[in-house]
């Protein structure tokens, strides 16, 4: 049986005046129904571009230059815009970090939800309203009827993010791609939103691709993790294993950098230097200038993502 979503060797480039730069370089992964996957890495690693590529929303001058994206068995990466619109926001929904990217400040919540539904389905206004209410209840929105008449600015950040999730659920999607959905929120609200996403995946058999830089969040919500560095997935495997027995030196460093991973007051493990910019990616393994295990081969050959141990795939010559 084919996966729900299967991304193979995806490459995304940005056509700049100075030449093309590669933002995503041969990324592959898959997602099954009801499965929760985390895409983690530091800013600029390529997490968001990967998410946007799946729904064909990469901003100009970006384009998919190689690879395939199969959704429910069909290759969708080259779908024309009208065909893609049937999938985007319908079968695959996206939640952004900033709720105002989805919400229009001048319309009520109810109007926006009903219009979204009517754009995708041939239903009456009262049917749409009923579905909107049902989804607001599903995300445990307090006094849902009242919300329909409110404007986005009348709601708190946590409530707005709940509305976004409700909107993304309107068409009963098979997959939700959530890009830093709680980064702008306080921890108590973050915990509630994450609970909610997790329950929805379990109850509605929805696939979740959670994009975040927060390994703590990922480790509690997801079943598998892909770690990105400079446009590549460098480690990929079951969350438990990756978090407790990471293989790639970058992942090991990243986990060691988190306060809470070691005794308070002790020096945190730090990775020297910083991630290269896209125009400056070193030859061989992109991590080599920061890696304490780097050997000659690391500057000469690019390591490929391959099975290492405990079901973990990693891209490293020395492991």
């Amino acid at each position, binding site marked *: 049986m084919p996966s729900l979503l299967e991304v193979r060797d995806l490459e995304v480039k940005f056509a700049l005046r100075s030449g093309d730069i590669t933002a995503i370089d041969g990324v592959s992964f898959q997602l099954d129904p009801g499965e929760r996957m985390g895409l983690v890495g*530091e*800013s600029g690693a390529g997490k968001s571009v990967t998410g946007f590529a799946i729904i064909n929303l990469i901003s100009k001058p970006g384009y998919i230059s190689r690879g395939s994206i199969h959704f429910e068995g069909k290759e969708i990466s080259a779908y024309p815009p009208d065909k893609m619109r049937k999938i985007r926001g319908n079968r695959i929904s996206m939640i952004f970090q900033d709720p105002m990217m989805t919400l229009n400040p001048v319309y009520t919540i109810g109007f926006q939800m009903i219009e979204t539904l009517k754009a995708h389905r041939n239903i009456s206004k009262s049917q749409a309203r009923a579905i909107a209410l049902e989804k607001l209840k599903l995300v445990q929105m*307090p006094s849902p009827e009242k919300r329909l008449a409110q404007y986005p600015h009348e709601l*708190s950040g*946590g*409530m707005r993010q709940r509305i976004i999730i409700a909107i993304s659920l309107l068409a009963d999607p098979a997959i939700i791609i959530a890009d830093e959905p709680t980064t702008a929120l*306080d*921890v*108590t609200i*973050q*915990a*509630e939103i*994450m*609970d909610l996403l997790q329950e929805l995946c379990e109850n509605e058999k929805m696939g979740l691709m959670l994009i975040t*830089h*927060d*390994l*703590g*969040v990922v*480790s*509690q*919500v997801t079943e598998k993790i892909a770690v990105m560095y400079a446009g590549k997935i460098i480690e990929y495997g079951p969350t438990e294993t990756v*978090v*407790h027995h990471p293989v790639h030196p970058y992942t090991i*460093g*990243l*986990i*060691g*950098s*988190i*306060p*809470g*991973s070691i005794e*308070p*007051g002790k*020096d*945190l*493990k*730090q*990775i*020297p230097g*910083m*991630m290269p910019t896209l125009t400056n990616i070193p030859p061989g393994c992109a991590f080599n200038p920061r890696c304490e295990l780097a050997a000659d081969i690391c500057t000469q050959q690019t390591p490929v993502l391959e099975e290492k141990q405990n079901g973990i795939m990693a891209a490293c010559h020395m492991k």
Partner: protein
Amino acid sequence: MTTNHTPLLRVQDVVKHFDISGGFLDQLRFKGGIHLEKTTVKAVNNVSLFVNKGETLSVVGESGCGKSTLARVILGLYRPNAGKIFYDGQRIDTLTHEQWLPYRRKMQMIFQDPYASLNPRKTVRQTLEEPLRFHNPKMTSQEAMDKVAYVMEQVGVDPAWIARHPHEFSGGQRQRISIARGLILDPDFIVADEPVSALDVSIQAQILNLLMDLREKHDLTYLFITHDLSVVHHISSRVAVLYLGTLCELASANDLFNEPRHPYTRALLSAIPKIGEKKAKHIKLKGEVPTPVHLPSGCVFHNRCVFARDRCKKEFPRLNELPNGSFVSCHGVEEGWPMA
């Protein structure tokens, strides 16, 4: 709140409110006749705390709870509406601009956003030299240069980059430069407002290690403001928890993380996602965070607290000292209500 010795900083019953009523027309109300109504943001309400020499006191709480406002009041950037602030035993909140000068040198601030806090048109050298020359008018240029180079080295920025502008640096390097600016006057006390929040975790670790290292080397005292509780646990000696501008709990980092007492602290800590830990059930809060314009009566946390009783709605809970030296402001803790 009392201590046996003189703390480096003491904040006593500090209140800071902002009037955001706007003009006459904005204030007009028509409830039962025409009258004017002021709108006040009650950002900090009767906060008392102290910071001992050499320690790191962290102030934590969710967005808008008054952390930055408290920091600004302490540094004399805002005048408090009420309360007193003492630095090394000397009251400082009533000082004139001139009398503040020596304290400006001793007390420094590091900000969250190194983009906003560094002047884009100034080179690193200008940024670092200016305060140095202002506070040490007799210093020669060679002395100033030497000092700048020394501090740059201390924070791990190559002194060869002295003529560069902020945009030529990465986020982490910029934060190092704003730390250098904080250090250049040899301060004793540093208020750091979310100094690592804008940074990626591997860079954040570099900066946290640097801050801890500098504290040792230069005998610094920190007031550290952040919403990131794992960072707090890592670097603090003691922690102050704020909710809606009110101090809930003040305790040693160990006590606070092992045995939080105030219901809000407990909910907050239970919500931290910890890496590698299977999901613990976090404590769900009722309702919504009220705004600091309409503070709830009694305990400001009562509409969200699952343990709230009648008294909580009526009476503001006093800050009580517990046998272990923690301070907690909660009727339930004071009266020993069952709160499992």
